[in-house]
């Protein structure tokens, strides 16, 4: 009997070992997803979209896993948009209906969600996925099936270039990130030595740190160390000590909320006193609940400000605050915008040709063209798209975290 148990444990442990091994590898195997989907799609395209009367738009964001924080923020924005635009008459009288599929935090989850939305739910277009890392695996599926995708939080280099059907409303990190370094130099012109930290298991953070490192060099600053970690790490004492020993005046972190927050906390606890810049992954109120009082002063560049004076932003912000009693996060504003782009593009298309008369494949293709052609007045300001599908946005901001006296609550204060 005991031997059998020992064997069982050995088996389970081996499975666990294999799982962790694959997790680190970035899931190269899942990228070659079944091609049968494309065939399914083409055979199903004769159906119309409006089986239940509403026009289905797919939301593929993370509802579970360690990225669920970001996914849930985005989801809330999309839901507010659905309700708001339907109350304004939807698509010239026809309501839209968001169909949500959980992508979880990995590539396989995103691929499954995309396939379900495209083949089963027969959506006209998709908002998502949450991470750039997931987008590189899942977006090609939509591209092959000729279904428009709008990324609401993918900011890594190369996302719109995945294909003709891939666009994004999240401005690329190369444009947003340098603003925070400039803001730090404004606060302390004496900054000379910079330590950079980044999560090496995440495509977005890798791409972001390159931008940060380039900006540091462009500003004539000295890059004293580059420390790597994983988004799943919790203990950063080795990296923090390595960096602190080199006496940096500025620390730049590219990570996600939980790991980034813990890194900020441990840097401060181990005695780092200089300015800290957080990347886009830390750009969420969820980071406040991790580093609490020690978050105070962290600078983060922003693609969205709740204080942007546009009309649609005022409405969006008001609905959000009424419901959740706090300011909307950037991802919430961006996913609202993504749904808004679909709604306005569908309205414009419907005026040209009644969309209920279009077969699904034709509708998806025409919608994609319309998305790229349009101009939109959104909570992010006035936006449009480059021919390849990248967002053209005018306004960017820098916010600084200000914690209350008790150190338990705080907010992003816009300084630019």
């Amino acid at each position: 009997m005991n031997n059998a148990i020992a064997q069982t444990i050995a088996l389970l442990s081996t499975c666990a070992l294999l799982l962790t091994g694959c997790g680190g590898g970035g899931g190269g195997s899942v990228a070659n997803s079944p091609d049968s989907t494309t065939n399914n799609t083409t055979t199903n395209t004769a159906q119309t979209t409006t089986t239940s009367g509403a026009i289905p738009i797919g939301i593929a964001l993370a509802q579970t896993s360690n990225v669920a924080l970001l996914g849930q923020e985005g989801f809330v924005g999309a839901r507010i948009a659905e309700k708001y635009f339907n109350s304004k008459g939807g698509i010239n009288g026809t309501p839209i209906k968001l169909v949500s599929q959980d992508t979880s935090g990995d590539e396989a989850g995103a691929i499954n969600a995309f396939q379900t939305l495209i083949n089963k739910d027969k959506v006209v277009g998709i908002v998502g996925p949450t991470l750039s890392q997931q987008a590189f695996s899942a977006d090609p599926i939509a591209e092959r099936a000729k279904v428009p995708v709008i990324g609401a939080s993918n900011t890594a280099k190369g996302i719109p270039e995945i294909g003709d059907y891939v666009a994004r409303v999240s401005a690329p990190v190369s444009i947003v990130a340098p603003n925070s370094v400039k803001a730090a130099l404004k606060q302390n012109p004496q900054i000379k030595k910079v330590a950079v930290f980044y999560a090496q298991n995440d495509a977005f953070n890798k791409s972001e740190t390159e931008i940060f490192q380039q900006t540091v060099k462009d500003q004539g600053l000295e890059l004293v160390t580059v420390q790597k970690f994983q988004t799943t790490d919790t203990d950063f004492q080795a990296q923090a000590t390595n960096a602190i020993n080199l006496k940096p005046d500025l620390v730049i972190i590219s990570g996600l909320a939980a790991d980034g927050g813990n890194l900020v906390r441990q840097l401060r606890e181990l005695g780092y006193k200089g300015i800290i810049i957080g990347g886009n992954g830390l750009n969420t109120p969820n980071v406040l609940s991790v580093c609490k009082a020690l978050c105070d002063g962290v600078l983060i560049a922003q693609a969205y400000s709740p204080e942007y004076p546009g009309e649609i932003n005022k409405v969006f912000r008001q609905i959000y605050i009424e419901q959740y009693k706090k300011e909307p996060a950037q991802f919430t504003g961006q996913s609202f915008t993504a749904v808004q782009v679909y709604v306005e593009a569908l309205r414009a298309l419907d005026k040209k040709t009644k969309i209920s008369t279009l077969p699904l494949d034709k509708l998806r293709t025409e919608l994609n063209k319309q998305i790229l052609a349009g101009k939109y007045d959104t909570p992010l300001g006035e936006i449009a798209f480059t021919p390849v599908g990248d967002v053209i946005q005018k306004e960017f901001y820098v916010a600084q975290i200000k914690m209350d006296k008790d150190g338990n609550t705080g907010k992003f204060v816009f300084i630019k």
Partner: protein
Amino acid sequence: MDITLFLQQFLNGLSIGSIYAIFALGYTLVYSILGIVNLAHGAIFTLGAYFTYALMGGNFGFNGLLANAALPIKLPFAIALILASILAGLVGVVMERVAFQPLRRQGSDPLLTVVSSLGVGVVIVNLIQYLVGAESYTYPANTYGNLPPAINFGTPENPIPIRSVQVVIFAVSVVIVAILTYFINRTKYGKAMQAIAEDPTTASLLGINSDRFIILTFFISSFLAGLAGTLVASSVSIAGPYFGIAFGLRGLAVIVLGGLGSIPGAVLGGLVIGLVEAFVPSDFSGYKDAVAFGILFIMLLVRPQGLLGRRFIQKI
């Protein structure tokens, strides 16, 4: 590696290892009594951390069913920690009654019980997410009172700073291991548990009510998991409902390394894995799990009974 960093990582490894030790003790206790590995242990660990958060009057975020809910009480950390661990222990008892006892009664294969425990773990994790969302939560800023954020183990010129919370964790773990060792070896209850572990049939012939002691074992085991969860969360915050999963897996590595069913083995295994992980270069931090399970794998090949475990004797 310079001496400062070495000492810092050594102390850090001891602190992490001591947590692995008390967590793995829970696994080991259940294993020695029932001969099964309870795969819901990681979920109970998570649950303990959330219980403490709730008992300290923490507010829940807006994504779960309990959006913005908070208990009307605000207990100090030490009391919340103990109460939460007791609650975790009680959940362990309920789990035993619901998921383990019926299978045991039917004389099912131990593998079925292991699968059943995995199911309980998944249910608990999903329930947490359903109720309080996936946000991360951290205990209030003043959890450890007026302790400085870091303690210097070096000189003012050559500081070796260690986060105070790591020192507290190590101290609490040492105390818990000491109490548990005393309980198992010196008290009547502990000896009865040992007797059941040795041979349940003989123990019941001697008048020991094994059912009652199984409940006690589950209570202590889950108590330890809840305690470990809270201590870890006080160091790195609760990173969401999934935060116990990695711990659950590493705990398996610890007990196999130390020797299944061996209490000193769990402690030694915990410290070894903690120290080895601390010395994985930070550039390769993603391979910490792989290192832990690599050690486990080699151990199974070289010395299947673990560092301090007893060799299985096939009785014919």
